[in-house]
């Protein structure tokens, strides 16, 4: 059966071909718009990545100052007076070893200019006689900004150091995950002698710290299914809502025993702007904490967004659960003592009145008889005008034992669900 030209089929094919052409145009344009550095001179390069070094010289001096390129001794200005078409060669090198770093995104005065070549260089025509700011960004390295002098030409070398923020478990973009960053402490404590111990670093160095962090994560965040109430299931794949990092540059340490929750150098916050919770991890606590004047074993400092941190010993993961309950989920202690109580709606684990607790219990189909005042009789009589529900052993009561009851679990699930994936 001979077939002639099937016009109908031809028309179909033409329509489908044009459709596919349109699809190709859409895909190509989408790629160009999303990754504009494919086309030089277009919109900006990939984002500033975790571990960026402070780029601005703050007048308050809280950040690292912008480095003057002339201070590096590598800028060779060209004579006096205006130079026609002066050229500036920018070299990016690894601070340890001096090897050239290719693919570094460079921003001149804040605007993307291009990326360094395979030999780590980028040449540009100097935009004018004024000093220029060169911002160098590359994944895995600390972002750095240098400022040249006026009438600059010649060569500028920007040495980049590796990012001190080490990713441990990345489950999604920084913007969409709960970012937990661990910082090593160079101090510990001996409660028997009420003495802070200077460790001169983290014992065992980076390998030990990383191992301690991994174990801590395994025994806390990964244990939620075993310590939360089955009445409020955790979001499916809840573990994927977290990104875990640790900070290590051999020079920056938290001091776990400088104040209740310790202290963290300011430049850490400039480098880690996205932390939803920073955990100062110290090796161990010696002796038994019996109250002031001893420093406590664990503590949470509730700064504002991005600066909440806590300290815990690496070998006490149950206490870690409690402190993370404070820092991440706004859970309140349910023991009676000199601590802070508040009803943090919605889904609190502590209420300001018995009626409020019972009303909440009824609304959740819990037994309202479980509501009881926060009080204790030993070692001394104590009571607070707050009420709790979760049965003992409650992690927020004991710290070293127990689980999260309905109220605490509901709060945890509420917070986790606020982070969509």
């Amino acid at each position: 059966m001979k077939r002639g030209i099937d016009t109908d089929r031809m028309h179909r094919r033409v329509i489908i071909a044009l459709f596919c052409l349109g699809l190709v145009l859409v895909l190509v344009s989408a790629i160009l718009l999303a990754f504009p550095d494919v086309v030089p001179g277009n919109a900006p390069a990939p984002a500033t990545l975790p571990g960026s070094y402070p780029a601005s010289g703050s007048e308050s001096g809280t950040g690292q100052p912008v480095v003057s390129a002339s201070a590096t001794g590598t800028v060779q200005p060209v004579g006096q007076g205006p130079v026609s078409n002066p050229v500036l060669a920018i070299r990016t090198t690894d601070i340890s070893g001096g090897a050239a770093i290719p693919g570094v995104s460079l921003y001149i005065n804040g605007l993307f200019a291009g990326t360094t070549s395979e030999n780590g260089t980028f040449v540009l025509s100097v935009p004018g006689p004024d000093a220029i700011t060169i911002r160098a960004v590359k994944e895995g390295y600390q972002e750095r900004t240098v400022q040249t002098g006026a009438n600059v030409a010649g060569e500028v070398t920007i040495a980049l150091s590796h990012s001190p923020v080490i990713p441990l478990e990345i489950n999604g973009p920084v913007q969409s995950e709960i970012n937990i960053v661990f910082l090593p402490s160079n101090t510990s404590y001996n409660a028997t002698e009420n003495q802070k111990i200077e460790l001169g670093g983290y014992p065992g160095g980076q390998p030990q710290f990383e191992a301690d962090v991994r174990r801590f994560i395994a025994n806390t965040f990964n244990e939620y299914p075993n310590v939360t109430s089955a009445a409020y299931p955790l979001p499916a794949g809840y573990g994927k809502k977290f990104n875990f990092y640790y900070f290590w540059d051999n020079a920056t340490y938290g001091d776990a025993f400088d104040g209740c929750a310790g202290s963290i150098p300011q430049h850490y916050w400039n480098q880690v702007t996205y932390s939803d919770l920073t955990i100062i991890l110290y090796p161990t606590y010696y002796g038994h904490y019996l109250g002031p004047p001893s420093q406590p074993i664990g503590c949470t400092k509730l700064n504002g967004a991005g600066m909440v941190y806590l300290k815990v010993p690496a070998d006490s993961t149950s206490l870690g659960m409690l402190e993370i309950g404070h820092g991440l989920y706004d859970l309140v202690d349910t023991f009676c003592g000199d601590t802070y109580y508040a009803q943090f709606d919605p889904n609190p684990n502590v209420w300001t009145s018995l009626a409020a607790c019972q009303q909440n219990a009824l609304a959740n189909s819990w037994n309202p008889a479980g509501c009881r005042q926060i009080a204790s009789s030993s070692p001394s009589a104590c009571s607070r005008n707050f009420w709790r529900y979760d049965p003992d052993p409650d992690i927020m009561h004991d710290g070293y034992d127990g689980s999260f009851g309905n109220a605490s679990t509901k709060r945890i699930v509420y917070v986790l669900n606020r982070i969509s994936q």
Partner: protein
Amino acid sequence: MAIKHPAVLVLLLLIVCPAALAQADAYQKVAIVTFSYGPAGISTVSSEIQYGVPPHLDIQSGTLSGALLDAGHNPITTFSMQDPRALMETGDGSGTSAPGTGSPASPTGEFGITVPYTPALKYISLTDSATGTTLVTADVTPAVAAFSRLYPNDPDLLAVSGQGAARTPSPVPVAMLATGILLMGICACAYYLLYLHLRPERVLIVDDEKEVVDVFSLLLEKKGYTTLRAYSGEECLRLLKPWWKRPDLILLDVKMYPMDGWETLEEIKRKPSLKKIPVLMLTGTAPTPAQARKFGLCIDDYIVKPVSAQELYGSIDYVMKRRETIKMEIQAATLAGYEKEMVCEYARLRRRVEVDKKLLGILHTDRAAIPAATPEERTREIDNVQREIQSRQETLEQLLVKLSPVIHPPS
């Protein structure tokens, strides 16, 4: 009666892969503000703008309400945080020896926040949620100015100062995107309207007798068909030119002048784009054996006038159904791996044999149509036609045997 397309509707009508793929913003910035508190209240210590990814503002809750404000002190974003003054630190001791005790809240101290910076941000305020009292408002414009001195060409800041467009994408990709979307949309609509849209079957009625055309048109439209009318062969060919209005079936009268039905049929079948349209010949008399031999391959049926409405509907339905059946059989045989030539021959014979059988019936009942000289010659002509039909039938049966795994004999 609607066109059926059982095929899956693979219409990517507007698959837009927008430029907004998930990608971190290259110029994302944060505002870091440090506050101090004391007996006099809360005050701003410092603020700075820097590049960076902000934390989640919606994780915390607490007794303080934060707001990022624009120049008019209108909120851009709000958030909650716990009051660092009332709760500086909670200390947890060993549960086995003594209840945890916290450090007493210090009357003075500092705390800080990191929030996302957008070009509209001018102030950051903290408010007591319970009383609504504004505790502090930090002015970040000096920090923005300091940042601008370092990064004067940052697109966000240029946009704010009106010195440039904020990170407008290159026009070329935008034009490509728009063109691509338009093209896809037009093609998808065209394909749908032409090939997938369920529309009534369209019948072209060709007869030089207007009354016949009108009657047939009325009958068919009553049955749910759409009709086209042509009163001559030339008009028929003219109506067949627009490919988007092509009929699904043609009723073609034989006796027309100057271009009769056979000539019109020849023209139709000469065009590759039209040859597949089924044609039913309308005839008041039977075709001659010569005409049957010549055109038998090209037509799908004969309708002898006068014809009742039911006969008309029945013929059209049968032809359409047979076409679909043969089409499915061809597909099945092709998929089963049978030779293309054999499958095509089967399809050709399947239709031809049925048409010829009908023709034979017409010849038997209207021997006067045979322009032979004597009755014996007429009989001989009919016998010749019958032998030809028999030959084709045998060939068809042989093919059916070979194709029997996938094709069942027609009932």
